[in-house]
């Protein structure tokens, strides 16, 4: 009788243990799938997408697991980081401090300084006409604008003889900014202000370092 009782206790423990292990394994699997998804996408993914990847209906659960993954990455000493953006989106990317040395290895032709300045100006002043941008940034801006349109970072909409320029959702996603223009402009202002406070090197390399590694709003 005692043995039987012991046995049943034992088997209950085994079952419980198995369950625990199963649930731990389940979480492990989900962690890996989310990591894989973020790696492949190379852009912020929302909880709905992550749910579909791990076959789960609970956004809350998936959010919790993804936050575990963020902690995992923080604990590891790694060149990569996972960020939680506003509106519950997550993105895996290279930490900024590593990026300068390896930028040249990136597959895609990346934008040079000139187009990037035009881009930040458009983002900051949008909606803005092409004419105004060219007045401020000079004739080169025509080429920059074409390049930015081609990369799907800005939209160009005809307006009489001129064009109205706006950043795209892809732009917002790429930089981890809000898709809402007003919020985005506030975020940008904060980034630029912070940059202004920092002592910049004399060569005027007024780069916005570290703006991506912080969670914006």
């Amino acid at each position, binding site marked *: 009788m005692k043995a039987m009782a012991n046995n049943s206790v034992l088997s209950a423990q085994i079952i419980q243990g198995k369950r625990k292990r199963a649930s731990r394994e389940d979480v492990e699997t989900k962690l890996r799938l989310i990591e894989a998804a973020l790696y492949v*996408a190379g852009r912020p993914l929302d909880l709905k997408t992550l749910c579909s990847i791990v076959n789960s209906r609970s956004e809350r659960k998936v959010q919790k697991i993804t936050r575990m993954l963020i902690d995992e990455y923080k604990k590891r000493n790694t060149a990569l980081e996972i960020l939680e953006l506003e509106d519950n989106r997550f993105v895996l990317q290279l930490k900024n401090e590593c990026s300068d040395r*390896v*930028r040249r290895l990136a597959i895609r032709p990346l934008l040079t300084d000139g187009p*990037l300045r035009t881009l930040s*100006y458009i983002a900051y002043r949008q909606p803005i006409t092409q004419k105004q941008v060219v007045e*401020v940034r000079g004739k080169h801006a025509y080429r920059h604008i074409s390049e930015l349109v081609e990369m799907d970072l800005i939209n160009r909409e005809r307006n009489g003889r001129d064009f109205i320029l706006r950043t795209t959702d892809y732009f917002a996603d790429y930089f981890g900014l809000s898709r809402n223009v007003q919020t985005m402009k506030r975020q940008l202002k904060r980034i630029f202000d912070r940059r202004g406070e920092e002592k910049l090197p004399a060569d005027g390399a007024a*780069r916005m370092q570290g703006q991506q590694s912080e969670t914006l709003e």
Partner: protein
Amino acid sequence: MEKESGKPFYFHPPWDILFNLERLRKINPWNIDIAFLLSSFLEEMERRASVDFRASGVALGSSASIYLMKSNLLLKLEEPPEVEPRQSAVDFVPPPLILPLRYELTTTTIQNLLEALDEALKSENLLPIRTPSKPILPPPEIMPTISMYLMEIEKEIERLTSKMLILSRRGEILSFSKLAEGLAKIEIIKVFLILLFMAHKGKITLWQQEDLGEIYITLNGAGAVRIEGDG
């Protein structure tokens, strides 16, 4: 006053400005208080109890001109194109946004590459003349020599004919190997080409007893000596 100077009162300051268009144009319109001038002008006429409609009309006309000058100046000041772009040209340009580095799996597969190749090759086939994919080799040395030679073909025919005539008069059998005897390879080729030309023109007949055997030559026409091959 009027009688003293012989001029009506409004030809004196401060109202005279309203009746002197030349001066009016030189004066800064902002220095003229039209309201004061007109009201004091009317008061003065009332005081003198002599209403001069003509003078009033001129005074009104001048006032209108001054108003026009003032509003022209105002409009000029408000014209934006001169001032505005300069303001925006020094607008704050934020520092460049730095693209975060993210790996992204791209969707292009080798299958896509081959589909693209299919399309590219289609337009290649549409080209009227296919450009040779290999660089054109410099022509071998024999080519210019032969072309030079062909230009002097007639001369060569004569030279070879006389040689054959000499041989045939000596009673020798005319064979290709006899003509080519002791010649360099290139010269042998020349001789052979000349013989073909001559045969084509009907000056000689070439014949062979067996395939790959000796080529015998028969001169045709005047001075020809019929010579039979051995056997």
